[in-house]
């Protein structure tokens, strides 16, 4: 059953990435697709943290900010290749998640939500105020990744939109594969155990704070890479990437699709990424819509859209 969920998710996702372009009315949709994949990656991290480890972060956009600004700053200031800057950002995010999570996750309850909220605000403030380094709220240019040019010399000539679509699609596939590996692994089982009964998890020898910390660090890396990809494909980034609204967006996408399921999270990311593109009014009322989605899902589809539908189809749980 687990194997089939994993295989089905990966195959479905691969088919989607490969086949969706056949139906694109214009090149613009490659860009929308790439955005969906980038958001899907961040939300996959939320699934690990919230869906499996049962912890809530309200500052995950902070890690996206670190990933994004690593790609903007490291190449310019330290001559690091933008591709390597993705890893640098991920490492910094992981370290920060470790430092913030270690003391907080020893406490019972939802202190991580509060601590991460503060952390996110702090990161956002630094990005806005350290103008000498980040150029502040106006944003900053991000260097070219350069992979497209390499592919071109190798004979694969993609438009910018196509390149980012397929590149982000591949990274999302990789991210989904890793998350699904985790789900079926001993660590993943331990995560689900602590979600089921923390007391029982401890009495079977699971080091609960440590496990939650691992989940937080892993999910921070997902958010960071997602931020890096966003910055690199836009070739420009503003501190909004680290803003509170972006954190809320990630959580809402996960909750909408189904916070316990990778496929659901990607679906949620797709819906809430597409919506503003289709309905321009959405942009104006984004906060309102996100809030509404949250409330409606909580009332009508506690598990999120995708698991609820699967349950209907199979007549049972996942």
């Amino acid at each position: 059953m687990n194997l089939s969920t994993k295989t089905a998710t990966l195959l479905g996702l691969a088919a989607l990435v490969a086949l969706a372009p056949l139906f694109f009315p214009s090149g613009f949709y490659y860009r929308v697709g790439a955005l969906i994949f980038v958001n899907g990656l961040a939300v996959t991290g939320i699934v690990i943290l919230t869906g499996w480890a049962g912890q809530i972060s309200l500052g995950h956009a902070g890690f996206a900010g670190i990933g994004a600004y690593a790609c903007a700053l490291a190449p310019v200031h330290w001559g690091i290749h933008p591709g390597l800057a993705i890893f640098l950002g991920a490492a910094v995010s992981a370290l920060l998640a470790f430092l913030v999570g270690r003391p907080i996750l020893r406490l019972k309850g939802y202190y991580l939500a509060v601590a991460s909220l503060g952390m996110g605000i702090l990161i956002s403030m630094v990005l806005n105020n350290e103008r000498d380094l980040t150029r502040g709220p106006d944003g900053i240019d991000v260097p070219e990744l350069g992979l497209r040019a390499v592919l071109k010399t190798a004979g694969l000539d993609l438009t910018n939109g196509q390149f980012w679509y397929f590149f982000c699609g591949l990274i999302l596939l990789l991210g989904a594969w890793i998350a699904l590996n985790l789900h079926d692994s001993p660590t993943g089982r331990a995560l689900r155990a602590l979600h089921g009964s923390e007391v029982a998890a401890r009495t079977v020898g699971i080091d609960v704070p440590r496990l939650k910390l691992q989940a937080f660090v892993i999910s921070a890396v997902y958010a960071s890479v997602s931020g890096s990809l966003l910055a690199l494909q836009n070739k420009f980034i503003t501190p909004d990437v680290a803003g509170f609204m972006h954190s809320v967006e990630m959580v809402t996408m996960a909750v909408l699709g189904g916070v316990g399921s990778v496929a659901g999270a990607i679906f949620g990311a797709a819906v809430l990424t597409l919506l503003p593109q289709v309905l321009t009014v959405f942009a104006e009322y984004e906060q309102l819509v996100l809030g509404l989605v949250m409330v409606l899902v909580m009332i009508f589809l506690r598990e999120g859209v995708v698991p609820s539908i699967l349950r209907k189809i199979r007549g049972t749980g996942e």
Partner: protein
Amino acid sequence: MTTTPLLALEGLGITFGGLKAVNDVSFTVKPGEIVSVIGPNGAGKTTLFNMISGIYTPGAGKVRLAGEDVTALSPHLLARRGMCRTFQNLQVFQTMTVLENVISGYHLQESGSVLADLLNLPASRRRAKQAEEGARALLKRVGLDRAAEREAGSLSYGSLKRLEIARAMALSPKVLLLDEPAAGCNAVETEEIDHLIAEIAASGVAILLVEHDMKMVMRISNHIVVLDHGEKIAEGDPATVSQNPAVIAAYLGAENAAG
């Protein structure tokens, strides 16, 4: 007998806002021995278990595991040293399968590096396979092998009790604390659990049992400790304890009167 006890309690006590839930309780359990703790509801039996297994920090006294002071260690560290338990109010992982519940008891043996898990490396898969084989053998032992793939939440109460025992067994316990393993079970299930406990004890595990079924307690215990209002009011072998006037007054009498 001169065997060193696997579990030794020395003057264990805890207070909740002025209430002495457990006060100055001492006794020992040797390898292969079944010691039962009896007493009316609210006597402090579960609280005693919670202190021994690290869920509550004792206000006074010591817990020794194979001679070593393990007082107030975290539950997961105690579990790793072989202090394992089941719960009065079941604590199974409802949404996991029966098999996965028991595999989770192998967490220590099966968990290696997170990185190996993330990348699904052979080391990770090998550990998972070993854990699964062990878990299936344990399920067979408690008679749940046919339910292995079912969602744990769908099992009957009696089956869940046995599932918890199997999960605790997966940790290779030195000391096994069983909190009302036969509560809510029918006569047949009770007898099965009865046999199971005797079998586990025979393999050298020290068993501390809380159980309301007096017939079962009298049948399988080597030694009985009687608690009332958090205090140890009597102890001895089943025959001695059942004759003790204080015990009859505090507990057995009330039980008999209630039918």
